[in-house]
């Protein structure tokens, strides 16, 4: 790994840590309409846009483990889904889709709700809690929209890092 890669991956890692801290900080609630965003999800997705499969998987797993650690329950759900998501995004952007904000937003429109709805199904519906759908409409739906709305911010940031390091190399 050369110096440029090291700087890039360090920047991505710092982003991961910062987002994890921000989204779990009790005094810093980014709540809108009852939902708080899963910042790590659009972050790793937009990292994967500019990375090859293996680095994408690594960041997906890292972000997923951090996301899992922030929730109670067994670890692994976000790690697995985000690893798969990052792999798929990486392959799609490298081979099939031209990278732009619009295409990344479209990919996010399909993938983020899938991942987050899956989490709702595994950790709320399957657990047999009462009033799950009220909870879904009160919190999960706004969380999905809110998380999706964060894509442009992370896209811009990671694009800047990727382009800058590419130019330097």
């Amino acid at each position, binding site marked *: 790994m050369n110096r440029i890669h090291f700087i890039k991956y360090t920047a991505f890692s710092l982003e991961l840590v910062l987002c994890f801290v921000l989204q779990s900080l009790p005094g810093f609630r980014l709540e809108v309409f009852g939902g708080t965003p899963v910042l790590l999800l659009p972050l790793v997705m937009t990292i994967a846009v500019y990375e090859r*499969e293996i680095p994408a998987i690594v960041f997906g797993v890292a972000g997923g483990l951090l996301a899992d650690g922030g929730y109670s329950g067994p670890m*692994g759900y976000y790690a697995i889904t985000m690893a798969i998501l990052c792999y798929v995004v990486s392959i799609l952007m490298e081979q099939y889709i031209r990278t732009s904000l619009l295409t990344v937003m479209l990919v996010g429109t399909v993938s983020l709700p899938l991942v987050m709805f899956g989490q709702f199904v595994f950790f709320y519906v399957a657990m047999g809690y009462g009033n799950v759908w009220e909870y879904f409409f009160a919190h999960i739906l706004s969380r999905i929209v809110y998380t999706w709305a964060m894509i442009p911010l992370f896209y811009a940031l990671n694009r800047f890092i990727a382009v800058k390091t590419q130019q330097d190399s």
Partner: protein
Amino acid sequence: MNRAFSGKGFKVLVTVVCLLLVLALVTAGNSTVGGLFSGFILTPLQRVAAEATGSAGQVVTLPKDPQELEEENSRLREENRRLTDELVEYYDIKRENEELYKFYDIKKSNEDFSVVPASVIARDPNEIFYGFVLDAGTADGVSPGDPVVTDNGLVGFVSEVSIKTAKVTCLLSPEVRVGAVDKKTGDEGVISGSPLYADSGSTVLENLKERHSIKVGDIIVTSGYGGAYPRNLKIGTVSKLLSDSYTGTPIAVIRPFEDARFVSSAAIITNFTGKGVIESSSPELPQTSGRSAG
């Protein structure tokens, strides 16, 4: 598309997913691995960040596994049930204590009284004169005719009694006949309820002399004549002076000190000095089908 499912990246993905599945399975039944990860990596991060923003006290609690949460939940539920029971018991004892204290006052100021405290356990909705049932009976020494009082004054008398209960006919009922006297003027009469005034919580002092000196606001107490009620039990104040619409004799509407409609506890006076002794100076009081005047 081939590369997507056969390349090096795909093999790495499959391996990683398998490893993560194992991790998920392990942490599903055991929080140690997840706890270690959270405890050593995530929590310090969160704590530092929380302290940096001045909200360390609100730091997110460590994730717990479902079994631990379930155990904690059931323990808390059990504790909550126990505390609720204790609270209910505490309120019962507190209320009982307050009631007994009131009756202690009655007893203290009337040392000759034998008092049985009791709680109202039933009110018959068909009883239009607001009679009620107390949870004391013959087993407690209660007998028919015993006066029933609260710390505010006379409420009525025991009209029926069983081993553990006593039915009380209150001052609002026409069945009641209580010898009473105006404490200020000494004018005597008989307290008896009237359907006209029962709903407003008032009773009537009748059998007054044509030339009485009773005024509105005077205090009426039991006369003690007849031996059914102790002397000087507070009854109420005069609220109106009228003439009986049938006989034309003067009557006084009395507002009892204790509103029998809302009594929740009372004391039954089972014995007192002069019980059953008919004094020679007692006024001519009519005998009724209900209660003889006291």
